[in-house]
């Protein structure tokens, strides 16, 4: 008998159908991945199964657990959920009660389900099982790192020794290395406890890593289902094919681009944030960037990679003039500056493309008004030429200049990121700093945006500094990679060489944390040890 059987599940918000009649089954101990992009209904499916839908949503269809329908009374359903199903959510910071110690939150889960199982687990055991130390249990959520919080969530989910674990994007809020460790932990625990897993993710490689079977969701329906090998190696449906090809990056151009003279030179830049303790006494400063030197040649594509908090974004801010170095200096085309003092005449030569296309445009201004803002940096420019310059930039990113009169909310994420690139191009800059340019986009549009960036680079002879944590993307785009850790650049070189033969410990970890390509031979047990 199946552990879980879902038939014709429909979730509606008023008239809008979010999940449109999906059916799936899960055998005891089986690991099923649900793949889908944002808005595909994958999370709502998980919430519908556990009766945790947000207010305003209604569901229909049958859900059977061990062949029996789910109870209708709220209390009985809640108890069943607690005993049989463990849940792990995407954002562990908000999913934990901020006012309660981790130990107490785990103990509550144990106590709630104490009659259900014979062999009792206790909190220290659970902490150990998920790889936390005992002292972490005495802390509050805000005192733990992202990975530790997610481990605490998993410990809570395991407290009742459930038969089914539902994990909704459990690693997408974590950085690369932690992501890999938590994935390994989930796979490991499921195998050891022979627990079934419903793993919800947009990340095909993560699903391939932990699951045996996969269902692909697209606008509320399951479009394809089957074993991981079948679906991800030989996709039958168009949509799945697009997803699979988008998660693969074309290999980097092998020939070396011709490089010009040095365009940007960073000389011993340090950034300190002065801190004070609770009584206003100065304490040791936070130093996100520590004596960094680098240079970028005209026409070069350089990538800066590193885990979150390594200082790469702070460095980028100093380079574009949003922040100032505490020590050291930067030279752009021979002119020296420290950050915010970047002269106006130079500012037009350096542009920044932001990570999140949804916050990079003022919702109350038309796209045209936002795009013309950087032209402020060219006081000599004739006002009458503004429309032509805007049209030029918008056409360059492959959009219609007629869109300039419209407002940001009328565009999709991918379109907005194109428009953000257009804004960066409006002053005809020489250096583009790209801060995680595709990581906020759905997988299927990432490829197009990267292609666009590559085309623009060739067309206008641009120089790129790409900030990213995504090694695959970097390998496909960059001529040279700088690896940053704790404010310092620890290794650099050509992507092919550096990823094949990493020298520094961090680079080795990053490379090891990379999930295998979908067509690599599958080997779920080959997860690296923490």
């Amino acid at each position, binding site marked *: 008998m199946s552990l879980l059987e879902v038939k014709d599940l429909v979730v509606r918000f008023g008239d809008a159908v979010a999940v449109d009649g999906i059916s799936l089954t899960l055998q005891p101990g089986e690991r099923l991945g649900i793949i889908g992009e944002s808005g595909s209904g994958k999370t709502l499916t998980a919430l519908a199964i*556990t009766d945790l839908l947000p207010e305003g949503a209604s569901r229909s269809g049958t859900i059977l657990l061990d062949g029996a329908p789910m109870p209708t009374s709220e209390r009985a359903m*809640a108890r069943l959920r*607690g005993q049989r199903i463990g849940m792990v959510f995407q954002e562990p910071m908000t*999913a934990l009660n901020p006012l309660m110690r981790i130990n107490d939150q785990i103990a509550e889960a144990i106590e709630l389900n104490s009659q259900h199982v014979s062999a009792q687990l206790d909190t220290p055991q659970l902490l150990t099982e998920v790889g936390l130390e005992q002292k972490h249990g005495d802390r*509050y959520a805000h005192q733990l790192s992202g990975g530790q919080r997610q481990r605490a969530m998993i410990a809570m989910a395991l407290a009742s020794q459930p038969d089914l674990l539902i994990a909704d994007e459990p690693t997408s809020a974590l950085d690369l290395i932690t992501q890999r460790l938590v994935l390994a932990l989930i796979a490991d625990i499921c195998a050891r406890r022979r627990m079934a897993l419903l793993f919800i993710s947009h990340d095909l490689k993560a699903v391939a890593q932990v699951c045996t079977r996969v269902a692909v969701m697209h606008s509320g329906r399951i479009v394809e289902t089957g074993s991981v090998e079948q679906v991800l190696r030989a996709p039958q449906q168009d949509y799945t094919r697009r997803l699979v090809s988008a998660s693969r990056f074309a290999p980097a151009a092998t020939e070396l681009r011709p490089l010009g003279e040095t365009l940007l030179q960073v000389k011993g830049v340090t950034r300190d944030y002065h801190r004070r303790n609770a009584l206003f006494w100065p304490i040791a400063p936070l130093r996100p960037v520590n004596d960094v030197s680098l240079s970028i040649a005209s026409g070069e594509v350089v990538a800066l990679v590193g885990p979150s908090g390594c200082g790469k974004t702070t460095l980028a801010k100093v380079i574009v003039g949003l922040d100032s170095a505490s020590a050291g200096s930067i030279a752009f085309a021979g002119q020296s500056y420290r950050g915010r003092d970047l002269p106006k005449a130079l500012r037009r030569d350096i542009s920044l493309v932001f990570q999140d296309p949804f916050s990079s445009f003022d919702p109350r201004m038309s796209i045209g008004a936002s795009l013309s803002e950087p032209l402020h940096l060219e006081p000599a420019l004739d006002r009458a030429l503004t429309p032509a310059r805007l049209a030029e930039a918008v056409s360059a990113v492959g959009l219609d200049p007629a869109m300039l009169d419209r407002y940001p909310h009328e565009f999709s994420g991918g379109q907005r990121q194109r428009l953000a690139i257009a804004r960066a191009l409006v002053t005809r800059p020489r250096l583009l700093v790209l801060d995680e340019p595709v990581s906020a986009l759905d997988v299927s549009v990432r490829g197009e945006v990267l292609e666009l960036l590559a085309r623009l680079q060739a067309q206008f002879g641009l120089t790129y500094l790409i900030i990213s944590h995504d090694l695959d993307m970097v390998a496909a785009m960059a001529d040279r990679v700088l690896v940053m850790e704790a404010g310092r650049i620890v290794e650099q070189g050509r992507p092919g060489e550096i990823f094949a033969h990493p020298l520094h410990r961090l680079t080795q970890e990053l490379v090891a944390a990379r999930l295998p390509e979908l067509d690599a031979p599958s080997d779920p047990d080959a997860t690296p040890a923490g």
Partner: protein
Amino acid sequence: MGGGPEGGDTAPSRAVIAYALRRLIGFAVTLLVAALVIFVLLDLLPGDPAQFILGINATPASVAQLRLQMGLDAPAYQRFLGWLGGMLQGDFGMSYTQRAPVAQLIWDRLGVTLPLAVFAMVISMVVGLPLGLLAARRRGKAIDTTIMVLAQTGVAIPNFWFGMLLVLVFAVGLRWLPPGGFTPWIEDSGLALRGLLLPSLALALPQASILARVMRTALVDVAGQDFIRTARAKGLTMDEALWRHGVRNALLPVLTILGLQFAYLVAGTIVVENVFYLPGLGKLIYTAILERDLILVRGATIILILAVTSTMLLTDIAYALVDPRLREGAQR
């Protein structure tokens, strides 16, 4: 913003003390500046207290004599420091209209004003918080609508006008309670309590309505948060999850309101005591203004500000005790 993993090793009690100390410094500075503002404002006033005390017929010599005696000829900063120093020792100066120490006058009146504010506070919490809780847990149901309509009306009613209506109903109509006046506590504490019942009800109504609304909003807000979903995933029903995890989190915004509320209740007593002919601070201040007794006005306002700021200080400390995130130097 996630604190570093190393953040948890400091003992919370030490962090609370550091936090409280920081607030305490802010509190002292606020009071000091407030005293300075009050002093400067009232010092700017035209008119000579000595002249006022002695009347228009006084000779310049006797006025000068009194000025000297009152220390009015000293430089402003000396008089300010003298006033501050006196207050630290409990000496607020002499009221020249009432011929009595200001501290004594204020102390007597606080015997009415403070209990009134405290009663009103207690009533508003006892009524408002459960109603807000009930409304939130039965959101969208008839009981929620009823409570919210009542609260909407309650916040719109001026407390002093409500006091007048209470007098009409309970004192004039039903004759259950006295319409006004106050029997000092030492004479008959039962009568004193009865005298404060209607005024504190009048003060409490709008505050209870506000508390009910804030509590409901806060709880509804918390109900939509991820950690409530986590609690439900552990096996709790929505109501149980709200009770175990929601209420404490919802109390954070309520706590902020409570702090402000007590402060404004103290100020509100000034208006409401007028309805019930209570001998509170308001009456004292009003007479002092009319008679231009600046020393008394000065002393009474600083006491009111002390009441306001010290409640805010207590709120901040209570906040830090409830919320571990605040103890680590994070600004609210």
